[in-house]
């Protein structure tokens, strides 16, 4: 196992009386493709926001490649890329303008930002839509263009919140390959997802979060414990069973 790229210690955040993140500890090795899974409202987005310097924690420490996110935000921001869950982009820029803007915000020369932007749009199958306003993009296209914006400066650590939600299977495969390639070159990826099959397939490290706490973390095989990740997840978090017998009228054989 390499040096940790992401180290989280005692991270906490409350919103009024509700404790969204109740002191999480996490360690992700450099070059890992790590998944953060949990039920709705478990604290995944809040945790990722605090790890990326977008939400000030009540307590705790986050180190990215040894740099404290909350002591030296500029140094940490320089090495990370972020794709938020609720992808909200500059709707009135075209796809090409948006990716170039993201690159130039990171201090890249205009020519390089344009060239890399064009390559990313091509790989993400958005080249034909490069001149269309982002406002007219579908949900999946927005996810892809957001990923392009997060990748343009070749981040050492990439955070993604539900990256494949609303993305078609072909684009999802492209994204999966992009992430694998990024990790293969030594970068680290941490993403949250509800899709257990995906996490099981591509992640070498998994953390399960529930009610603001990490309930299991380690290599994917370790967390699975010989079961499918879906089963392991349900066993750890608990299923929310309900009485489906009341729907006895449902089905073609009923009247």
């Amino acid at each position, binding site marked *: 196992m390499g040096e940790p790229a992401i180290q989280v210690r005692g991270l906490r955040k409350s919103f009024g009386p509700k404790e969204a993140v109740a002191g999480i500890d996490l360690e992700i090795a450099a070059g890992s493709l790590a998944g953060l899974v949990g039920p709705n409202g478990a604290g995944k987005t809040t945790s990722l926001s605090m790890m*990326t*310097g*977008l*939400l*000030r924690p009540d307590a705790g420490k986050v180190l990215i490649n040894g740099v404290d996110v909350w002591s030296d*935000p*500029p*140094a940490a*921001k*320089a090495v*990370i890329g*972020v794709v*938020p869950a*609720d992808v*909200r*982009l*500059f*709707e*009135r*820029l*075209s796809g*090409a*303008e948006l990716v*170039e*803007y*993201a690159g*130039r*915000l*990171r*201090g890249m020369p*205009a*020519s390089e930002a*344009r060239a890399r932007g064009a390559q990313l749009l091509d790989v993400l199958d958005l080249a034909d839509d*490069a*001149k*269309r*306003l982002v*406002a*007219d993009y579908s949900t999946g296209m927005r996810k892809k263009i957001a990923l392009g*914006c997060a990748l343009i400066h070749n981040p050492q650590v990439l955070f993604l919140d539900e990256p494949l939600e609303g993305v078609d299977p072909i684009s999802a495969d492209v994204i999966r390959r992009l992430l694998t390639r990024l990790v293969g070159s030594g970068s680290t990826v941490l993403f949250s997802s509800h899709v257990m099959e995906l996490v099981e397939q591509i992640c070498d490290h998994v953390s399960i979060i529930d009610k603001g706490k990490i309930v299991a973390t380690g290599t994917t095989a370790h967390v699975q414990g010989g079961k499918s990740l879906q089963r392991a997840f349900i066993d750890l978090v608990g299923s929310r069973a309900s009485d489906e017998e009341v729907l006895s009228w449902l089905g073609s054989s009923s009247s």
Partner: protein
Amino acid sequence: MARVLVQLKLRLVLNALRSSTAAQTSFILSTFFAFVVGVGGFYVLSLFRGLSASVDLTTVIFTAFALSWLILPIFAFGLDGTLDPATLQLYPLRTRPLAVGLLAASAAGAWPAANLLGLLGVTVGLAVGVLGVLVAIVAVVLQVLFCITLARLVTTSMARLLRSRRGKDLAVFLFIPIFALLELLGQVIPNAAAHGGITAASFAGVDAWMRWLPPGLAAHAIQDASHGHPGTALARLGLLAAVIIVLGWLWVRSLDRALVTADTSTGSSQLRGTALPLARYGLRGVVAARFWIYQRRDPTSLVYWAMTAVIMVVVSASTILGTAGPHKHPGVVIGSAVVGAGFVAYFHANSVGLTGPPFITEALALTGRRSLRAYFSGQNIALGVIAVPLLTAICFGLAAAVRSPAQGVPAAAVALAGLGAGLGLSNILTVTLAYPMAKRTGSPMRQAAQGFGSYTFGGMLASVAGVAVAATPVILAAAFTSTAPAAVRTPLLIICSAAYGLALAWAGVQIAAREAEGRLPELCQIAIQSTV
């Protein structure tokens, strides 16, 4: 079907009362305003009795009601579920009963009732005798029916567009004439009327062409019946009924089409260029490029500029329209310049909230005070490129309109200084008084999120007052040098004011960058809470 759709409409209205406090407040205010419009309309129309221009004024009011029926449903497209045929597309419904049902649903609610009540004022103001009153009642019913059918036809045939991004943009642009009309009715006309600029006689003959429009037919039918021409009155009502039948037929056809063609595609077009301008100028240049593009492509930004222009004209309107007297003073153009610059500051005093969640992309790259200075100055450059020529041109235009072209120079000087102060102030307020913006149902424009209304008021007060204070030295300098030769005074005043404005903008950028450095996570949260 009619019963089901009327019940649906009433259920939607009642559900508004059970939802959030904001929706409840909005419903109560809307019902209250409907009552005011109903009673007020009745009262105003009844006042026309005996006036020589009574039929002319009635025609204008009937036409105004029809126009509001035409425009408001486009605004409220997302608010009234029964307006969009796509909501009913999935059900096995035949067009004819559906059309009758939708018509009945349109007639249900506080606003149609207020419309009917208000227009019945003609039974007092215009109708004379039993026949006049009877024709007035029929004319009002036909006028309301005309308004409903027209509104349904427009919303149904435009449904596909209104669901799209372009349709939503169109709704935002409609804010400009509505705002201008409100300013005209609320400020300009009352002021001009108070100073003798406009009288009831001014409206005589305005219906020369309006009388042949459907609302004019209704108004003139009442006039004819009241003056012993029942045949002409019936002919006009018959013509109006025929127009309604044709509109209804067109609407049913449009509904037929909408039920099988409705979709949510936007039909977007390709833009010409793909590269951002100002490539050579680093972070400042790229931020300026982004803001510059937004000022051209974002309808809200365009509406803000149009509103600034309208406000500047309104401030000088009493002098432009008024007769001679204490209210006519060419110096009012300087007031327009101060208010214009103040509103430029106010409209951009919450740029993080206005940018919304995309600000995260920018925040991830803002890594220190230097980059924050570049960010704010880039923003100011883009706004200045539009504001300087716009405000200067309006100042000179208003000076010409008040027949004192010389006032254009001090007004432009005040505008330049005020803009510098305003942009600097907007940067500071963006950091210190940031608040989330939200899009509310029924309004295409974004407003302060619930609980942040006082921030909007504070921002406006601070912007206009701050600009007024900052512009005072220039106003005094203009006053003290009013007798100096124009060849010396004009360049000196303009250059010194511009330099003063630039210094104030620079100071604002410095302060804002210093304050923002420690508050970026909080600003990010405000951006995330905003809806775009």
